[in-house]
């Protein structure tokens, strides 16, 4: 378990090994897979997967308060533990993968952004969103995570700012690769940034980061 502030995070080693670790970030409402997914079996190094706050075996907070930035800090705790990593993110994990690739450009050597639950997020402009409270449950995923992270604001220019951080801070020519077929506005904008690559599959994208 990793400690991220008041939360304990479950970081799973799906396959041990040497070399740069692959870090899998799941989608909204998911948890880490139990085994190495087919799409990443060719990765030459260890394969790890993180349960975000309120998901899988990680702490379920009381009273919600989720933001994508908090989950970015979850991913940062894993990066600080693992050292240099390559990231594969599904859905919400793709958005978090983008954020951490920008925030820790020197440590994240390639981020693959793939389809999955929670890829859209909420609106890109402010709205009169409901203020709500939810009943507590005993097991993850936390209903607050589903509700709050399913509607978090993702303005395209905010997302592209992190793509630019990655491009400026990484020594890779193309530190971000988009493989998602469904592309909400934030991901469309990222894919159009100069220096952001596109690939037809996670497996193909990872071949460029495996060196």
């Amino acid at each position, binding site marked *: 378990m990793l*400690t*991220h*502030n*008041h*939360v304990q995070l479950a970081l799973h080693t799906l396959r041990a090994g040497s070399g740069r670790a692959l870090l899998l970030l799941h989608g909204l409402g998911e948890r880490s897979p139990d085994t190495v997914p087919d799409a990443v079996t060719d990765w030459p190094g260890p394969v790890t997967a993180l349960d975000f*706050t309120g998901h899988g075996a990680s*702490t379920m*907070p*009381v*009273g*919600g*308060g*989720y*933001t994508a*930035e*908090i989950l*970015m*800090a979850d991913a*940062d*705790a894993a990066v*600080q533990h693992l050292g240099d990593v390559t990231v594969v993110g599904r859905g919400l994990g793709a958005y978090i993968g983008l954020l951490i690739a*920008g*925030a*820790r450009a020197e440590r994240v050597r390639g981020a693959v952004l793939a389809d999955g639950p929670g890829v859209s997020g909420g609106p890109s402009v*402010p709205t*009169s*969103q*409901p*203020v*709500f*409270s*939810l*009943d*507590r449950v005993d097991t993850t995923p936390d209903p607050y995570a589903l509700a*709050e992270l399913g509607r*978090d*604001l*993702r*303005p395209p220019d*905010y997302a592209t*700012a992190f793509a*630019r*951080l990655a491009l*400026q*801070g990484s020594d890779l020519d193309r530190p971000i690769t988009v493989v998602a077929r469904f592309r909400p506005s934030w991901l469309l904008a990222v894919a159009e940034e100069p220096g952001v690559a596109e690939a037809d599959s996670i497996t193909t994208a990872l071949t460029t980061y495996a060196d």
Partner: protein
Amino acid sequence: MQSRTATNIDIPGARVPDREYRIDAGGFGIALHEWGDADAPVLLLAHGGFDFARTFDTFAPIFADAGWRVVSWDHRGHGDSDHAHLYSWDADLRDAAAVFDHVAGRRPVPAIGHSKGGALLVQLADAQPFRFASLANIDGIPSKRPIPDVAEHERTKMLTGEVTGWLEHRARTAGARRKPGTIDELAARRGRMNPRHSTEWLRYLVTVGATETDEGWRWKLDPSMRFGGFGPWRPEWALMRLAGLGVPFYGMLVEIEEEMGWGTAPDDVRPYIPDGGRLEILSGLGHFAHIEDPDGVAGRVLEFLGVPA
């Protein structure tokens, strides 16, 4: 009853709350503080970021004496409320709604917010207008900050610094506790954020906003919280909500800028004042105008609120 703390720091006009208790908001404990007759009409009071309800010890009693049941609460991580696993604007809104529910049900009541508390109430009034009879806002209207004319790569560097600074703060404060000290040391620390407050007031705040331990006094504020931050939210979005408010609105901005304020320019806000609302500038006062001049600011707000009902 005038407030006389265990350390005998007397502040003219300061009064301890008449009632203090906690409510359970979905398993999360929120501390409420009330001044005035328990059967009087409710008036909600929302504090600013890194403040706590007891910072209203000189302001709230004026309204209580005017016939209001003044209710304030400590935001999560502040004062006597629980420290949370997570902090967010939406969570603060949810906590505020729980407080309104507890003291007013779904009846409309007037409310006053300072700084972050003011911005919070504007958003709550936009999302749940049925809760508000009127809204007074003390230097809690964010507006677009002037963006320095810097090159793109410099702007990227600024964002990098904000993001990595925030991440490192989160890593550093895991399990951290507030640094202990004497009353004077904690007062001096807070004085850096509140340079216009008197030393005596700052010392008083220590006695109501910190806990005395074997090692000394420690602020109750959760050390994992950090002033500033980053994210997709933009200050000017608050103005869009302000324009659409349907309840009587009284906004106050201050003349003297301080680090804890938003530095909002009146000309940025005037076009967004809702129909029938008003905006005034508090001359000669800083961001904590209600503490600098409780009688003056309360007098303006009481005139706006009218007779308690």
